[in-house]
């Protein structure tokens, strides 16, 4: 069965500092992985996705993630965060037909 685990429920970070949001997946079959962002009172927006190919995936808003098969991880990184990055971030993987989401990580950027 597909599942993802987000290890941190909350991550505070100062503005312009780097950040890493952790995600581990569990799957016995080929896996597709995603990061979504949810701003307050809004729906989810796709940041980036890994389907195949290069293990380093670049997304929108300066975010990137690296697929690591040996560690079953897909951590999200940004070298310098902005106040506007404050949001909830969800890691997800696909099963046969749909997405399975983690519990989310709330990123708070401190001025």
């Amino acid at each position, binding site marked *: 069965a597909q599942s993802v685990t987000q290890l941190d429920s909350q991550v505070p970070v100062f503005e312009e500092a780097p950040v890493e949001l952790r995600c581990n997946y569990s799957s016995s079959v080929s896996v597709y992985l995603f990061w979504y962002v949810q701003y307050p009172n*809004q*729906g*989810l927006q796709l940041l980036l996705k890994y*389907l195949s190919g290069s293990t380093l995936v670049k997304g929108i808003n300066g975010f990137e993630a690296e697929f690591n098969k040996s560690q079953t991880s897909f951590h999200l990184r940004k070298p310098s965060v902005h106040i506007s990055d404050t949001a909830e971030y*969800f890691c997800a993987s696909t099963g046969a*037909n*749909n*997405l399975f989401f*983690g*519990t989310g990580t709330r990123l708070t950027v401190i001025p």
Partner: protein
Amino acid sequence: EAGVAQSPRYKIIEKRQSVAFWCNPISGHATLYWYQQILGQGPKLLIQFQNNGVVDDSQLPKDRFSAERLKGVDSTLKIQPAKLEDSAVYLCASSYAGPNEQFFGPGTRLTVL
């Protein structure tokens, strides 16, 4: 390109009442999804449609929840009767083909008192 539309954005009802949510997917998207997002949790799939047929409704509490997509375009999700634990954000998403490129609507926040 217009995004996924949902209405209403907010709804407050008392337990045992009924409620309905509406979703209009992106034009041309054959697949439509309804998710339930309880506070502090990730979204959980309730039901998936391919055109007007149900692909997966294994997580839909069928004793109180129902959904339809009669003409293969917009969809409604209904809860009757509502319970306190149904308080959540209900998200609609659509995709052209498959689950790997889903576009989400803004959601409907339901509060059951």
